[in-house]
Every structure is written in C-alpha cells, then in structure tokens.
C-alpha cells in the first residue's frame, strides 16, 4: 500500500490558496489589533480578492484537474470565479460606509466575506461530490453568520436563524441525494459518474438526482426552494443583502451547471424536466409575487428569484449555447443587481435608512443622476432594449428555442412582460410622483459601484463582443 504519492499541482489552486492564507493572516491581525482594525482589514481583504482575481485570470484556459481529481479548472471555472470575486469585492465596498454608520463595523465582516468567497471558488471548481459539499458548507456557514451580523437587531438575527435552519435542511437533502448518487453509480467523481450513466437511469438514481437538485435550488433560491429569500433579504443588513443577491448566486448557478452538465450529461432527459419546472415556477413567482411588494429589499428578493428562473432556462437546454446564455445572463444580472443595491444603500437621511418604494418618489428632482441610473437598471431588469438586460434574456431564450423548448421560451417572455410592470412602476414613482426630502450624499464606495454597473448596463450594447466571446469559450470548455 505504500505507493509513492505525487504532490498535487498547486498552480490551479493558487487563487484559493491566496485567499485562504491571506484570510488566516487577517484573522490574526484583527485579533491582535482589536476592534479598531476594521478599516485596514477591509482594505486588505479587497487587496486579497484583487490578488486572487489576478491569479484567476492568469490560470490556463485548458481543462486541468488536480488534488487527486477533486478540483478542476477550465474556462468556465475561470469566468465564473472572476464574476464571483468581483461580486465579493462589491460586497465589501458597498458595506464600508453602511457598517461604520450602523456601528457594526467589526473586522470579522470582510473576513467572513473572504471565507465565503473561498467556498464559492471551491464549489465552482468542484469535480466531485465531496468537494462540492465542502465548498457549499463553507459558503453557507459564512453566509448564515453575516446574515445575522447586526446581532442586536431582531430582524437581522431572525434572518440569520431562518437562513441557518432552512439552509441546514437543504444541505441535508443535498447530502442525502449525493449519497444515493454515490450508491447507484459507485463513484463521487463527476467524470466517472458521467461515463457510468449513459442513456438510462434507475429509479434510485433519479431519486438522488432530485434531492441534489433540491439542495442546489435552495442555494440559488429557485422555486420551490425560495421561501427563505424574501425574509432573509429583508432582514439582513443591506450590504449583506447586496452580497447575497450577487456572489452566492454566481457560485450557485456555476454549481448547477457543473453538476448537471459535468456529471449527468448522459441522462439529460431526466433532469431537464426538473430544471424546466423550476425555471417556469421561478419566473412566474418572481413576476407575480413581486407586484404586491412595497419594500425594495423584498422586491429585489423576488426579482432575484425571477432572474434565477430566466438563467435556468439556459441550463434547461443542456446545450453549449444554453450555457453560454447562462454565463452571459449571470454577468449582466450581477451588474444590474449591484447597481440597484447601490441606490438602495444611498437612501439615507442621517441615521435612518429608507427601503420602501414610496421613499423613491420624486427622486428625479432631488437626485437626477441617481434616478437616471436606477431607471436604467429597472429598464434593463425589465428587459427593454438597448440595455444589457435585454441581451441577457435574448441569449437564454434563443438557446431555448434552438433546443426545441419553445413553450419554455414563450412562458419566459410572458412572465418577463408581467415582471416589467413592477420595474416600470419604480421608474414612474421616481419621475412622476411628488418629491420627498433629499437624501444624504452618496458614499464614495457606493458611488463607484453604481457608476461602474451603470456604465456596463448602458454601454453593453456597443461592446458586447468581449463578454459574448468569453462566455462562449467558457461554455465550450464544458462540452
């Protein structure tokens, strides 16, 4: 048994190693320096994420497996990791001013964000079920803690507790499904599962597949496992909500693609039904349930459920074109959601934050530029050309039609029109209602995020080629 064990290649894991080693140093630094160190740790965490982003971009584009086949890097992983790191850094930038003013600027926040980011990167690169589960737990556990980060606030602790209990349940389901998949295929490794399963799958395996899908659907808040989303989004501190709406969604969607395309390509027919159902239900719920919402954070929760539904349309095709659609959709969704949350984070007078739609009335007269940016985000989320959101929806719906899922595409378009109602209502409130008092000046970090995402959303129509090409390469690397 004493076989010589080769040391695995650490090159492909460099981004994770940078983050993990860095975060350990930051924990130590924070513990020694004490409470006053949150400012510098925020900066250092951003530097770490930046370094990891550089490392991700320098990874090779061809498929590399390491760590005994548990860890895989390809163009898809590179692209989704870059998106996740951008989303995480935005989660820190958006929090800088908010946390200080709310008196919860403790140094653990950026540390937990970085730890959660490590989990996301591990999930994106997972090549077997154990790596997937461990990455998911790292990501989820950190998320539960930061949801309850404002621990003296009842709503925040309620959000954290609710997220924790439901999240533990979904982890259990995923684990149960994974054990069934392992039992019926004899392997946890995705490539082996893929070669074992060709054409037909037994009842037990489909059973396991459903449970795995349920665990994943919980993480990306797809219907019918969305119930936690509105409460958690409303209760968590707003920068945390922005982070939840952005980064874990990227990782969760990448995880869904990884599992279904990498591990179960042979039984497309079996999981396609699950994804199609979840996509339709998410799109419908996202459109209808959001109509009655007055709180912007709740509204964004339903909006994110709907958007996940649209992205799942791309996954349901199971084709390279569909995955390209998913990747484009997630990139554009990231910009739109971060931009919207940047505006929500600027609605503040003194110590009080405002979160309802009525508080936006007349924003065009008090803050014309902010109102314009938010209007662009809303038009884009509604899918109105020539803004980026239109192209995102266009990409997934075209893929669905080319894969003979015409009904799905039609339902998608219809729900997207219904959803346009509540996005456009926000524009109406901003431009045609009586103006309320001015808000405080925007913090510089928030302004930076808003400017960047607005520029992306508005100007995407002029330069779509780089994103489309990168997304195409990412999708092709999976097939």
């Amino acid at each position: 048994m004493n076989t010589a064990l080769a040391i695995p290649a650490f090159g492909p894991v460099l981004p994770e190693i940078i983050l993990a080693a860095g975060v350990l140093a930051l924990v130590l630094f924070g513990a020694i320096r004490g409470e006053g160190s949150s400012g510098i740790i925020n900066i250092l965490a951003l530097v770490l994420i930046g370094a990891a982003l550089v490392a991700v971009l320098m990874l090779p584009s061809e498929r590399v497996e390491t760590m005994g086949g548990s860890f895989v890097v390809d163009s898809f992983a590179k692209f989704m990791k870059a998106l996740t790191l951008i989303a995480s850094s935005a989660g820190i930038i958006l929090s800088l001013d908010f946390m200080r003013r709310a008196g919860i600027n403790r140094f653990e926040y950026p540390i937990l964000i970085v730890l959660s980011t490590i989990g996301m990167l591990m999930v994106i690169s997972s090549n077997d079920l154990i790596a997937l589960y461990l990455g998911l737990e790292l990501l989820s556990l950190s998320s539960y803690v930061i949801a309850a980060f404002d621990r003296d606030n009842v709503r925040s602790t309620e959000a954290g507790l609710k997220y924790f209990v439901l999240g533990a349940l979904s982890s259990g389901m995923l684990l149960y499904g994974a054990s069934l998949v392992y039992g019926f295929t004899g392997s946890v490794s995705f490539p082996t599962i893929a070669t074992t399963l060709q054409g037909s799958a037994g009842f037990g395996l489909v059973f396991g597949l459903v449970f795995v899908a349920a665990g994943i659907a919980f993480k990306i808040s797809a219907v019918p496992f969305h119930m936690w989303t509105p409460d958690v989004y409303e209760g968590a501190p707003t920068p945390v909500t922005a982070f939840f709406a952005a980064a874990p969604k990227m990782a969760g969607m990448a995880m869904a693609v990884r599992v279904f395309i990498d591990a179960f390509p042979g039984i497309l027919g079996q999981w396609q039904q699950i994804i199609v159902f979840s996509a339709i239900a998410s799109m419908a719920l996202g459109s209808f349930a959001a109509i009655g919402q007055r709180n912007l954070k709740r509204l964004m929760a339903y909006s994110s459920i709907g958007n996940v539904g649209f992205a799942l349309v791309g996954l349901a095709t199971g084709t390279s074109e569909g995955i390209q659609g998913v990747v484009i959709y997630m990139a554009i969704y990231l910009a739109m959601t971060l931009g919207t949350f940047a505006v929500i984070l600027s609605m503040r007078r003194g110590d009080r934050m405002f979160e309802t739609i009525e508080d936006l009335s007349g924003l065009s007269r008090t803050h014309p530029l902010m109102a314009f940016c938010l209007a662009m985000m809303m038009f884009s989320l509604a899918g109105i050309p020539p803004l980026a959101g239109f192209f995102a929806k266009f990409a997934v719906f075209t893929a669905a039609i080319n894969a003979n899922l015409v009904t799905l595409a039609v339902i998608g378009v219809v729900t997207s029109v219904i959803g346009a109602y509540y996005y456009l209502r926000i524009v109406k409130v901003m431009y045609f209602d009586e103006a309320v008092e001015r808000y405080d000046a925007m913090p510089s970090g928030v302004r930076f995020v808003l400017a960047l995402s607005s520029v992306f959303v508005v100007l995407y129509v002029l330069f779509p080629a780089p994103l489309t090409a990168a997304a195409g390469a990412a999708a092709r690397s999976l097939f």
Partner: protein
Amino acid sequence: MTVTAAFFYLFATIAVASGFMVIASRNPVQSVLFLILAFVNAAGLFLMMGAEFLAMILVIVYVGAVAVLFLFVTMMLDVDFAELRQGFLQYLPFGALIGVVFFLELTLVIGAYIIDPGLVRSPAVPIPSPDVMTNTEALGQVLYTRYFYFFQAAGLILLVAMIGAIVLTLRERKGIRRQNISVQNARTAQDVQVRKVPFRQGI
C-alpha cells in the same frame, strides 16, 4: 465463537436496554447518562466488527463531547420536562407512523437477505482486510494525501464556525470582576485579612 456471541449479546442487550431507559427515565440527567451507556455499548459492537477507529471516535466524540454537552444543557437550562411530556399522546400517532416505516424497512432488509444472501453485501467489511492494515492506518494513508484538499476545506469550515460563534455571541459586558493576576501577585501580607468564620453563621 461462543465468547464472541456472548459479548455480542452482552453489548447488544445493554445498548437496547439503555436506549429504552433514555426515553423511559423520568430524570433528564439519568437519560443522558443512559445515552452515554448506549454509546459505549455501541462502540463495543463496532469494535467486534473490526471497526476500531469508529469505536474510538464514538467514545471520544459522542461520549466525550456531545453527551457531556447534553448534560451541561439539561443541567443548566431550566426545562420543565414534565410539561414537555404533556403532549406525548398527541404525538403518538406520528411516532407510531415512523415506527411502522422503520419496521417495514427492517422487514425489507431481512426479507431480501432470506431470498438471496448475496444481495445484501455487508458494508461493515473494511476495504483493506484487517490482517493487512488496521482501519485507522488505512484512513491515515489517504487522509493527508489523497484527501488533503478535503481535510483543509474541513479545517476552514471549522474556522468559520469558530469565528461565527465569536462574532455572534461575544460582547463586552460592564461591571464584571475579572481576574487580574498582576494585582493578585502584588498583594502583600498586610492586605490580606485572615478571619475565623463561626460555624453555620458566616461573616
């Protein structure tokens, strides 16, 4: 052979009996103690199956940590167990349902074994035979090599759990008397008073 069987029945009987006592005993502290007894006997059963690593882990983790934690919780929290038992009849149908499900599963497993003994392969057989390598050694062979990545990831998860617990619960409280060792050590003999305390009266 008979010795093995004797030990098996000894461990199994005590495990089942103490498992029954966990739910039957009126005192929650006794329940936890019976739970510990059940764990120890289960560890004995594992040991007889050649799973010595699992047996030790059961004793260390479940008896050493989890059960002691239970004990602390039941002793520290003022839970009125008599009140908890009030709804016993109310939950009886649901409990009975779960019992029926377990019974059916057991019947299926035993039925399959009677029809074809080859169908149910014993999962208790360790992959490398115990003559070649103990299963602690077998785990050690892969834990830090093949599964090094998972091991590190699990370490990070535990770190998150620790940071999370501190973030959510540690707070500075005013008016607490902390031990100050340097002050204690700097005391001289004049600072200390020795008094004779009358029996049953106190100071």
